[in-house]
């Protein structure tokens, strides 16, 4: 059956769908982010929840105060090296399926504080980031756009086969080691399984 025929049936009130599609539709429209903000970007995230931008339209309005009840971590703001182990611990406490949005220049790369001694140069050194939202800060619309992109990603996930999503596979562990505090930096300063620095220029 083609998509057009299926659309035709849908117009007559007959809904044909696959379990995978139904399951992903349900999950993508009921994302519960963890209630957790780190710096100025968190203010934009809060604004996205207000009546004007209304993140509730996307089923993501229930900001959970516990990682056990959340499936989306919006890393919104500057991740200091002091905070980074706690961010990773919260991630580890979230049950699968779980997703990570890096919101703002700081969460992506350290942003304006990139060369500082106290700021992590990107949360993707320790967590698998699904969506990057650039900006300093990104506007609430940008966060909503990132959320829509995440929903598209969830809707495209496979439940079976070799490309099955992470959370239905028994062989992938998405818990990541929590770095220790060192004399100047975190030890290790990155999770090499997730991230490695770009090669220095040879010339």
């Amino acid at each position, binding site marked *: 059956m083609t998509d057009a025929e299926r659309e035709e049936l849908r117009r007559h009130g007959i809904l044909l769908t696959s379990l995978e599609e139904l399951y992903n539709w349900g999950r993508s429209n009921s994302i519960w982010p963890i209630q957790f903000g780190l710096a100025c970007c968190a203010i934009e995230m809060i604004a996205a929840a207000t009546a004007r931008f209304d993140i509730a339209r996307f089923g993501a309005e229930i900001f959970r105060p516990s990682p056990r009840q959340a499936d989306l971590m919006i890393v919104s703001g500057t991740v200091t090296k*002091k905070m980074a182990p706690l961010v990773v611990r919260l991630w580890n406490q979230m049950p699968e399926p779980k997703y990570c949005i890096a919101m703002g220049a700081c969460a992506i790369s350290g942003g304006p504080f*990139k060369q500082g001694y106290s700021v992590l140069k990107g949360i993707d050194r320790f967590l698998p980031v699904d969506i990057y939202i650039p900006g300093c800060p990104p506007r609430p619309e940008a966060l909503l756009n990132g959320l829509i992109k995440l929903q598209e990603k969830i809707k495209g996930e496979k439940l079976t086969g070799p490309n099955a999503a992470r959370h239905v596979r028994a062989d992938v562990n998405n818990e990541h080691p929590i770095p220790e505090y*060192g004399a100047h930096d*975190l*030890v290790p*300063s990155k999770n090499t399984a997730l991230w490695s620095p*770009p090669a220095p*220029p040879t010339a």
Partner: protein
Amino acid sequence: METVEQIRDRLLARFPAAAVAVVTNPGAAAEHALLLDATHAREIAEFLRDDPVLRLDYCSNVTGIDWPEKEITDTVKTTVADPAGGPAKVVETKTVRVEPGYFEAVYFLYSMAKKHGPVIVRLRTANRTDAVTLPSLTPVWRSCDFQEREIFDLFGIVFTGHPDLRRLLLWDEFVDHPMRKDYVEPDDYEWEPTAHGDVLARAQAHQAAVAAAAAAAPSAAMPVVNPTPSAS
């Protein structure tokens, strides 16, 4: 409100053993400060808080300053009469003295009851190396708590009598005090695309040093230039 000079005179009358001086601020704001000696600072602070005229019941802000050692050139002009009877000559003699460095904690005090302020109080450590202790004023003003911890964290001033002196912004394992003017950042930058040429140059020098150390001693776990295993 009384001027700083009046406050100083009252303090000197009340605490004859204490050394209280006025530090003038030549800036436009002209926020002159009272420099207290560390031994009497607690008593004087309590006096400033409880004195019925001043009633400085609120400490809005505490900050630290690092004054590194500096050379000061004093120029003395003397007029020497010419023995031959000509016009007198002006001779300049320059002496260079070294002013030792110290840390300073600066407290901004206001009165909620009397609606006046600020009165600025400064405390100085004896030097920048081993005698970096000052009395804590947290027992006098609760609001000093976090700010004295921040100064301890970033400048390394030790406040005796503080109820909970721990690092505030950095983690306990952190070595050094980054707001000191002689702080050298650890040289553990990784190469990253950056617009800042000097950062890139430094990162490349660091990479070369790491590579050289690795070539010299392949078994050494960690090159000396890189105390943390971040750059590889």
